[in-house]
């Protein structure tokens, strides 16, 4: 080797300094993000966890999770002791102690009892919407990536789908209201007056009068909202499956559909499930799309109570956690007595998203483990 002393550095180590600056900058940005995340989560956990957890077994405030939402009554009794009771217990208390024993009564809507209704409603809305979106979305993705002739038109379709992902959720809400609530077709013997079009089928009518504000309308609206993400991600996952698998399958005499079903879709499944995790969290968290299409602030029954058939669950309105949080934040005066419901709901919502994501990740890993890569 000629001039081996070139290997030894002399003078200021410029490259080393530049390297250090870049590393510090990137690290600083990362920590800034972490700090913001910690502040958001910190506040929610700091104020929410005490509502959710208890000192005694089972260490979880089951009442908060399983009781229905009620109005909170705050009052002093004759000895000047302050009581906080949900409406049902308040009326009991009043009938046993007499109306005269209540002083300084204040009421706070939606703040008493638990949040069973919103939890159940959100679970139903989310699962139903993700199921619908996966069904339509994966079908469309299969068509786009496996069947459609790749050309300019399909390129435009893809771009349109991609852009749909950027449409504000309130627009989806309004769309869902116009289409699913007011105009979607149902089978009925007696079409409503406002029906846009009623087609007699002989034994019954196909009437375009909408599904009303209902679980199914809300889920359909949410499904529309997450559809673009599901389609795009599913298509990417399908494309990532090596062409060799397809050719090998076709060369063995499989039809296209057999090939897709047996040697493309199974291997794209982990990717599709990953995308649906993100969609799940988004569907669970959105308020605007369900505001006009499914959600109610107060409801005395859980979705399956007081309905004649399983269909009744779909056509009934539901409470939902994000909408509940919205109501608690904006529709009632805030005071120390409302904080329990407010932060508790937020904390439970956080927990729910966490559970959803964890479940999906577990599911994905199981699917992946079944494949023998």
């Amino acid at each position, binding site marked *: 080797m000629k001039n081996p002393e070139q290997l030894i550095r002399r003078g200021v180590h410029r490259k080393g300094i530049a390297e250090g600056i870049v590393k510090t900058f990137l690290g600083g940005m990362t920590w800034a993000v972490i700090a913001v995340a910690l502040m958001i989560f910190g506040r929610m956990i700091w104020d929410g966890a005490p509502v959710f957890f208890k000192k005694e077994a089972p260490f979880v405030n089951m009442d908060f999770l399983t009781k229905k939402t009620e109005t909170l009554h705050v009052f002093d009794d004759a000895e000047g002791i302050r009581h906080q009771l949900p409406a049902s217990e308040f009326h009991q208390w009043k009938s046993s102690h007499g109306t005269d024993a209540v002083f300084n009564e204040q009421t706070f809507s939606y703040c008493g009892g638990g949040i069973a209704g919103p939890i159940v409603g959100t679970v139903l809305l989310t699962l139903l919407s993700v199921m619908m979106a996966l069904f339509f979305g994966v079908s469309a993705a299969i068509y786009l990536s496996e069947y459609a002739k790749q050309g300019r038109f399909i390129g435009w379709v893809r771009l349109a789908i991609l852009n749909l992902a950027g449409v504000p959720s309130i627009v989806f809400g309004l769309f869902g209201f116009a289409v699913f609530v007011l105009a979607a077709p149902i089978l009925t013997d007696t079409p409503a007056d406002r029906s846009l079009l009623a087609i007699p089928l002989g034994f019954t009518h196909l009437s375009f009068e909408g599904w009303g504000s209902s679980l199914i309308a809300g889920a359909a609206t949410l499904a529309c909202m997450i559809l673009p993400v599901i389609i795009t991600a599913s298509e990417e996952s399908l494309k990532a499956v090596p062409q060799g698998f397809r050719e090998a399958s076709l060369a063995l*005499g499989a039809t296209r559909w057999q090939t897709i079903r047996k040697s493309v879709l199974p291997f794209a499944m982990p990717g599709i499930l990953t995308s649906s995790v993100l969609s799940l969290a988004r569907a669970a968290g959105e308020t605007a799309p369900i505001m006009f299409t499914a959600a109610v602030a107060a409801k005395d029954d859980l979705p399956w109570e007081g309905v004649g058939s399983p269909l009744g669950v779909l056509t009934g309105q539901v409470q939902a956690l994000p909408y509940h949080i919205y109501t608690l934040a904006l529709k009632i005066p805030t005071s120390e007595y409302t904080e329990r419901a407010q932060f508790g709901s937020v904390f439970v919502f956080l927990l729910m998203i966490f559970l959803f994501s964890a479940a999906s990740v577990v599911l994905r890993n199981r699917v992946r483990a079944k494949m023998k890569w």
Partner: protein
Amino acid sequence: MVSDSVQPAIPAIEIENLRFSYGTKEVIHGVSLSIPANQITAFIGPSGCGKSTLLRCLNRINDRIPGAAITGGSIRIGGIDISRPDLDLQVLRRRVGMVFQKWNPFPKSIYDNIAYGLRIHGETNRKALDEKVEHSLRVVALWDDVKDRLKTSAFGLSGGQQQRLCIARTIAAKPDIILLDEPCSALDPLSTLKVEELLLELRNDYTIVIVTHNLAQASRCSDQTALFYLGELIEYGNTSQMFQAPREKRTEDYITGAFG
């Protein structure tokens, strides 16, 4: 050099004046060739001369490629023109199996890989499947290596074993013709030798067409050799004759390494 005399074989595949284009680019310019049954026919030629393209025409797997089309001539297999509109593509591909350059087992178990074609064609009987899987694995001399781990991933096998597994998978579907596109190009010499031995054995039951870059391989294990250059057939004939006394100057140049 397997057979030294020209055999009066029945043609299994007849290619007549075939032209083929990717979009507007014609890559096969009128090739005529008749491939005899129960023999090994090798396609050789420099890179990009259209060997793979021609091979992939024979089971119509090129249909997948947008814009790719036969623009003239015909291919007949067993006397049937395979471009007829009423052709049953699935049956064609079952009878004309294909093994690819890069071995491509499915990310499934060894057993499921072999059973794939059988299941697709409606075989559900457990015992019949077991038997056929075993038979196919025995044919490719893989049975003893894998019989204790049939349910484990095919990806756990070595490259040479995976390629033989792919051949077994093709055989399991009961083809008459087996097309192989550079099956050994990524294998070590020992695995290559094993595949070649296998091909020589299979020759009794199947018509084999193999694309190869390896001239020694062509001379070792083929009966007929076809040399292509820029989408045209330069010379086609008995392998030993072609390697010892080529008719064409270009063949001689190619074989002696003067071009290609």
